[in-house]
């Protein structure tokens, strides 16, 4: 269907009026060369008119040998919008920390203009490179070109999702372990679990180098690995004095906001009672030249976060309070083996690990994976007057 003039999209045009970059503008640009993008605009405009989405739920498409990496998308009025009758999404495994050469990005863009709509989303919530809008007959060819260029598909469905991490030690002095190496090693180790979904539901692993948690692991990863230090915050008194001289209200903006209430500013000297430090990073963020994480570094491992899809949102719970840097990967791999065994055995279809833990209780879960309960696993360990003993403990 030749289109000289693009169809009017008054409702979508509203989304271009604000101060921010607009995806509508970008799709319009793509539509100049690509009929799928033109139909995509039309379909979206129609969704706004009808106040309902016109993408059908589900769809099973894929490439040979893989059970994940491609998400089927069909619209429910294909006669009106034939160029987006099939508009499948490919997830492409991103490099650790999202570092690309411009050449790699050009290669990706070229592949995608040859085989698909040319529209991308860098990056999706999992971290993957998202290629939007492929026809079924183009999937295998796209996959071949991607692998020839050194890329591979990421996880989707009830699989281990593509692991992601913050930029870590590549750019950040606060990173308490090498998140990029960890992420890459994990990706290589679990190729089967990523490409051939074996689980009751999705499983996400994310690694942040420090408690600032730049990949927001704690709120959305089934297993979060968050860099942390065990010893004391390193303090440069001369630099603290400089911040004070420059007008920083240390008492109000640093000490008063410390969740552990472990800092004191006399007007001349800052003292930190590190025993009560919660490793929240606030003071370090405010005075980066004066305060730094300690030198005994490693990570905390947390479990069970998820965004609300089938049930409500969950935040992570601490599983291992501290593991030294050198032992992080081995510990995580051992934990994953035990956690997956338990989840596979007891998890219901489409039940995330956090929901399973809620259902059976943390005590049963810890027992199942062979970990001893520890005070760090509880949000307020000293506040609860009730102590439950197992029957065998009372003899």
């Amino acid at each position, binding site marked *: 269907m030749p289109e000289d003039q693009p169809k009017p999209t008054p409702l979508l045009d509203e989304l271009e009026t604000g101060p921010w970059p607009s995806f509508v503008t970008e799709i319009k640009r793509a539509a100049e060369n690509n009929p799928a993008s033109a139909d995509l605009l039309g379909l979206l405009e129609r969704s706004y008119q009808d106040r309902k989405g016109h993408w059908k*739920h*589900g*769809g*099973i*498409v*894929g490439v*040979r*040998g*893989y*059970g994940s990496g491609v*998400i*089927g998308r*069909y619209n429910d009025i294909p006669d009106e919008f034939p160029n987006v009758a*099939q508009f499948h*999404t490919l997830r492409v495994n991103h490099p650790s920390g999202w570092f690309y050469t411009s050449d790699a990005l050009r290669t990706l863009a070229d592949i995608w203009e040859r085989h698909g709509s040319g529209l991308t989303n860098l990056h999706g919530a999992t971290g993957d490179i998202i290629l939007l809008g492929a026809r079924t007959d183009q999937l295998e060819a796209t996959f071949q070109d991607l692998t020839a260029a050194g890329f591979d598909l990421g996880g*989707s*469905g*009830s699989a281990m999702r593509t692991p992601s991490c913050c930029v870590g030690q590549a750019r950040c002095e606060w990173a308490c372990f090498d998140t990029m190496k960890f992420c890459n090693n994990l990706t290589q180790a679990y190729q*089967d679990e990523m490409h*051939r*979904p*074996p*689980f*009751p539901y999705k499983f996400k692993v994310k690694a942040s180098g420090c408690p600032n948690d730049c990949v927001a692991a704690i709120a959305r990863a089934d297993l979060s690995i968050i860099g942390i230090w065990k010893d004391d915050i390193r303090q440069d008194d001369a630099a603290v004095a400089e911040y004070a001289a420059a007008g920083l209200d240390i008492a109000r903006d640093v000490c008063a906001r410390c969740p552990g209430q472990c800092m004191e500013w006399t007007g001349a000297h800052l003292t930190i009672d590190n025993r009560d430090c919660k490793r929240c990073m606030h003071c370090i963020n405010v005075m980066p030249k004066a305060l730094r994480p300690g030198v005994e570094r490693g990570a905390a491992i947390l479990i069970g976060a998820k965004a609300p*899809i089938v049930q409500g949102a969950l935040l992570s719970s601490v599983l291992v309070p501290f593991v030294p840097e050198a032992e992080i990967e081995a510990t995580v791999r051992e934990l994953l083996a035990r956690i997956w065994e338990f989840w*596979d055995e007891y998890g219901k*279809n*489409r039940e995330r690990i956090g929901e399973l833990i809620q259902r059976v209780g943390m005590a049963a879960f810890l027992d199942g994976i062979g970990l001893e309960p520890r005070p760090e696993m509880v949000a307020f360990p000293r506040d609860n007057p009730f102590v439950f003993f197992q029957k065998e403990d009372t003899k």
Partner: protein
Amino acid sequence: MPKYEHDGRIYEVDEDGFLQEPDLWNETVARDFAASEDVPEMTDAHWVVVNYLRNYYLQFGIAPMVRKVVKETGFKLTQIYELFPSGPAKGACKVAGLPKPTGCV
């Protein structure tokens, strides 16, 4: 409604090529659909997987979880992908004439 044709037999399918009426399934249907999923020949191993899926579906009305398929058929997941290159959900379920498994992204 899309159609799938093999050896002159025509089936009504959904957009992913799954048989629309599971009751029409028989072994000839399975062989016809195997051709659409990169399975050139249905061996005994293929039938073990397909018959397991079929019987589970007839008993419970849904497709089994992947772990159950692995456990009950005795094949590792990678072996199932060797038998059915498009995997247990897309390949094996389609050949077994199950309705499209409701997955999620």
